[in-house]
């Protein structure tokens, strides 16, 4: 059983917190902090297993983690899980995220086409799919259910995972990537990989297919905030100083909220 899945960045900021056992919120935060301090101390070239100790459960539990550029992926598992299997699972999860979020990012770009056209367009060509992400690693993307062979997909082959360059650039371009706290979609992907603490699916193609099907369904329903978001982005494009603070239309008094947060 997997007891918890934690994703946090190099500063210990949680990016995804998923417990399969009830802990109050404060304890959850404490566990995240402790885990962060545990893994932070560790060099990148030492083993990826940590005995859990007092953290969750006790001696039966292990922390198995991987560090990708700016993010730590930590799985807390008990002895029924295969250690190397979990390392592979993390890899599957991360690759799935990368694959899924690439799409989101592109949609995002198209959606915002009207604004900063040149910039974004440039970004699109530069970022476009996996020019920088997997070419270098090459062997990483290899069929489904890839197992730990120690020689092929070990993260040590790419000590600076190429993913990171891609993220940095995306970030510089102002796109949200999954490294950003876009919690829900990451959760949805995780839900297709692990369910209730047990491994649900290890075949990346299956996972991606599910996610895409769900996203299509969501799109067909109009998405969560299609209308407001469009409206907001329209407002954002208006030259702000020209908007009066209060619009008087007879007795209808529309308060314009402080827009600075959108800028």
């Amino acid at each position, binding site marked *: 059983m997997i007891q918890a899945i934690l994703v946090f960045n190099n500063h210990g900021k949680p990016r995804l917190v998923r417990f399969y056992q009830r802990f109050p919120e404060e304890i959850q935060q404490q566990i995240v902090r402790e885990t962060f301090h545990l893994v932070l101390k560790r060099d990148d070239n030492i*083993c990826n297993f940590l005995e859990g100790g007092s953290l969750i459960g006790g001696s039966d539990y292990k922390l198995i983690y991987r560090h990708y550029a700016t993010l730590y992926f930590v799985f807390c598992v008990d002895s029924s899980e295969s250690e190397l299997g979990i390392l592979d699972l993390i890899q599957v999860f991360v690759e799935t995220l990368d694959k899924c979020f690439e799409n989101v990012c592109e949609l995002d770009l198209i959606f915002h086409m009207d604004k900063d056209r040149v910039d974004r367009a440039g970004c699109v060509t530069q970022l476009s799919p996996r020019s920088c992400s997997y070419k270098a690693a090459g062997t990483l993307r290899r069929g489904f259910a890839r197992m730990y062979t120690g020689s092929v997909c070990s993260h040590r082959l790419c000590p600076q995972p190429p993913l990171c360059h891609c993220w940095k650039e995306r970030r510089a371009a102002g796109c949200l990537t999954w490294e950003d706290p876009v919690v829900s979609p990451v959760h949805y992907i995780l839900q297709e990989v692990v369910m209730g603490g047990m491994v649900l699916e290890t075949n990346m193609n299956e996972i991606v297919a599910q996610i895409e099907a769900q996203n299509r369904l969501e799109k067909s329903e109009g998405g*969560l905030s299609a209308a407001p978001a469009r409206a907001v982005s329209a407002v954002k494009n208006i030259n702000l100083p020209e908007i009066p603070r209060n619009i008087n239309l007879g007795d209808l008094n529309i308060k314009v909220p402080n827009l600075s947060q959108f800028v």
Partner: protein
Amino acid sequence: MALRMVKGSIDRMFDKNLQDLVRGIRNHKEDEAKYISQCIDEIKQELKQDSIAVKANAVCKLTYLQMLGYDISWAAFNIIEVMSASKFTFKRIGYLAASQCFHEGTDVIMLTTNQIRKDLSSPSQHDTGVALTGLSCFVTPDLARDLANDIMTLMSHTKPYIRKKAVLIMYKVFLKHPESLRPAFPRLKEKLEDPDPGVQSAAVNVICELARRNPKNYLSLAPLFFKLMTSSTNNWVLIKIIKLFGALTPLEPRLGKKLIEPLTNLIHSTSAMSLLYECVNTVIAVLISLSSGMPNHSASIQLCVQKLRILIEDSDQNLKYLGLLAMSKILKTHPKSVQSHKDLILQCLDDKDESIRLRALDLLYGMVSKKSLMEIVKKLMAHVDKAEGTTYRDELLTKIIDICSQSNYQHITNFEWYISILVELTRLEGTRHGHLIAAQMLDVAIRVKAIRKFAVAQMSVLLDSAPLVASSTQRNGICEVLYAAAWICGEFSEHLQEPQRTLEAMLRPKVTTLPGHIQAVYVQNVLKLYASILQQEEQAGQPEAAQQATQLLLERLPQFVQSADLEVQERASCILQLVKHVQKLQAKAVPVAEELSALFAGELNPVAPKAQKKVPVPEGLDLDAWINEPPSDSDSEDERPKAMFHEEEQRHAKPRQAEVDEEELARRREARRQEQASNPFYIKSSPSPHKRYQDAPGVEHIPVVQIDLSVPLKVPGLPLSEQYVKLEEERRHRQKLEKDKRKKRKKEKRGRRRHGSLPTESDEDIAPAQQVDIVTEEMPENALPSDEDDKDPNDPYRALDIDLDKPLADSEKLPVLKHRNAQAPKPPEKEDVPVVEKKSKKPKKKEKTHKERSRKREEGRKGDDLDFWLSTTPPPAAAPSPAAATVQLGVSAVTAPKDDSEVTRREQVADEDDEALEPKKSTQKKKKHKKEKEERGKDKKSKKRRPEREEATEPVQNGAPQEEPLPPMSSYCPLAENAYVKMTYDVQGSLQEDSQVTVSVILENHSRSLLKNMELSVLDSLNTKMARPEGSSVHDGVPVPFQLPPGVSNEAQFVFSVQSIVMAQKLKGTLSFIAKDEDGATQEKLDFKLHFSCSSYLLTTPCCSDAFAKLLESGDLSVSSIKVDGISMSFQNLLARICFHHHFSVVERVDSCASMYSRSIQGHHVCLLVKKGESSVSVDGKCSDATMLGNLLEEVKGTLAQC
């Protein structure tokens, strides 16, 4: 109005979405908390809106805030609202939030049951999937119970995506509702062979998880898993199965033998390291379980060790780590094969990775031998000096102590060396493990008599440098060592070279800076030391020296009298008084030494930690009984403290052995010696394991103990232990030479008849330097130092320890979908449970013998299945193993009666098989079975926890003791049947609503098509109407809330309201549905007639005989009676039938006469008096409604007529 709506929507336009929130939090780094609380206020506003989109957006933001550590449980109700949205987008948000924050304590969670059920049966696989995922995170016992059946149905869903999820979630359901395991298990087992690899993998996952906790119940699945293992190519599945086998092999060694070959093949063939590693692990587990030798045994070990060596040598730290981990498992049983890789493991001690170093340390623990101990410890000591972090250094320290002290200092040949190692360890700064070192010093000094002189010398040096220890390591753990040092110097003071000097060291003012408990030991041992000094000086005839010592004590003790620590203070004042008294005596030149040292006469022996618990309670002693009269209430509280003080005084008054004169002491010592001689657990010097070396000629002459150690010891900082290593080597060398000489001599004597092999130095050849006499810890007589079986009674997995081979009883069927009104406090359908159970437990007398036999045979057969499968491995005459017996014991005693014929038939087949295949074994086997029968008989009581509990809920509430078994009864009557579906139904009254009944219809799909869009329409009568969803007309049908895949049955409940219940009713109805198969879908119909009998309006209500008598006395009941002839059934059975079919309860029963009671849903009282004659039964009835009584009695008559 319109304007307001426009305003509302424009306002909404400015709602933050999640990304805005995230950006906002980033932009408010300095006042994040304030910003978030502002956002939460906004979210609260949004949640008040009607629009579900707005709510979903708010919940989405809350989920993010939850991750940041904010409690969002206050929004639980809104989350449920979003969960029940029709759009998938919102539903998904709702379920995600619920899975993050719902838990068993969330009170609104019970509101979700119906919503989840609706989503589970939703036509969209995404809705179902998202509901399953969410549920897996927050399933509660209630949800598990209510939804188990729905989820079980989903396990046969057409979409593998749903099947997979349904299978996985079953594990969570089992955990929360263990009763669902048995009914669901057959289907779960089916899923092991599902065509979809994902579903298969999920099923393997769940069963492995279950089997890990209670492996013995899953042994019978071993053949199936074995098949999977040899056929599957999915590495994830293989890993799980192989891990499972690792858990099963300890229970069944023969399984292990069968596994070795395929596992070895996998090890050779696979390229996946994870699989290789798990295979090696399981092979190790197999090898551990096989205690007896096997021909290719050592080959497998060699293979494992060799593969592990490859892992450890790999540059990948993960593989290195796991290799070491697995190696430590081999070490436990086959230390020799690991020891040859000592070089590799020592190398790992230098690794930069701390986890790897720790693992290597673990391995060292098992690798030491007499020969290598000193070398390894030397290496570890070097690491201690180098180690940077205190944690790692502490770990090293404990490991050194563990390694040296393991199995009673088995590997230590030279305790002087060990003591010096311990002394060296005291130089560690900042360690937390001072007490560990201290405990070792005490242990060794007490238990190894020969070392005391040396130990005392060392300890006195430690005490001498005490200020150094104490000052340089302020308040850290190392000063604990002084505790041991002081105690040893005091207790064994006769060995001290310069007692005066030590005495002075112990009385230094600096001592008062030590922790209280150490000072206390100091003070106490000062007195011991003083006593021995007095004795020495008096014997030597130097009273001045003795007086000097007295003077010293008198000067220094007051500093302890002023101590803040009570214990120190008390001891110091006592001793001070004592010393003052001694001084007076000394002044009169009275010899006091004898008396003073008598205070500490006698020897202290180590006592085993469990000894106190093991002291048997003498016969006739009741520890719980009051010794005095229990204090009465009148005893006022103020007396209590008095009693306490009194007790205290008594304790103080208890004389220590001080008053005992020398003779008495000698007598006691002798008695103890006698006692020890007869105590098998007291290992005396003669049977010591080292004793045999004593006889070896030459060993005694080795002058090791005579080395003058006092000189180097006084030079602090010199690594002493090194000298011992050298000395030890020399000693061993000499010893070897002597031995060789001896051998040569022997050889010469023997002549040349034999060519002796070259003498190799093995472990056993090394004789210890000291004549060590390791005194074992004392235990009371007849007590065995065993480990108590302390299992945690609160283990949640214990509830899942359920026998799965037992045939399923009707009572265990999963509860099915219910209308809310059917959830009466005491659901009547529960009533039929025990009756059925009863029957299966106690078959009729005449059938009994036959049944018993077949049952036993069946047990044998089941065991044989596994036996047979296992016995097809090479060694054909495998001895019956104890594990096989457990399997068979686990097989149930309950056999459903309808299986009888089938069982016998199968049995014959099995018998033939047996005879054909294993003719020789059959007699042996029969014997075995007989034995097991007896054993089972004994075990029966304890095994039948469940049935016993059910017995408590017998249907005959106030009834007489059960004499006879009851026949099976079902309240479900056939309703209608066609080529597609079979309907059976049961009508039950509702407790809450006084004019409602619930009709439970079981729909069983016996076609090959999927039945969907099922709808039940009933033609209402004036009196009886079907309850329909709001807004639907009288002619509308009520949809059945599930679909039926082929071969599946499920139960739906419908509520009817009834005006008058005095008469039976009949309603016509139709079930319409769409049957869908490969060829297409067809619309089908099935007509039926629902019969509402008067009995169905009755509710089983218990009634006490007093109330019953009052009711009859009141006289406002109408009377009627019937008589039925030609009844042969036993009275017991008759009553049970009436109770069951007509919902009565027995008030009282005398011989063949019983009074019964029931109540209608509209509150009519019905009383019956049932009398049994020779072959007739008469029933007298009283009821508040005459018509009803008449109808009821007619129905009862009908039932009786069938008897």
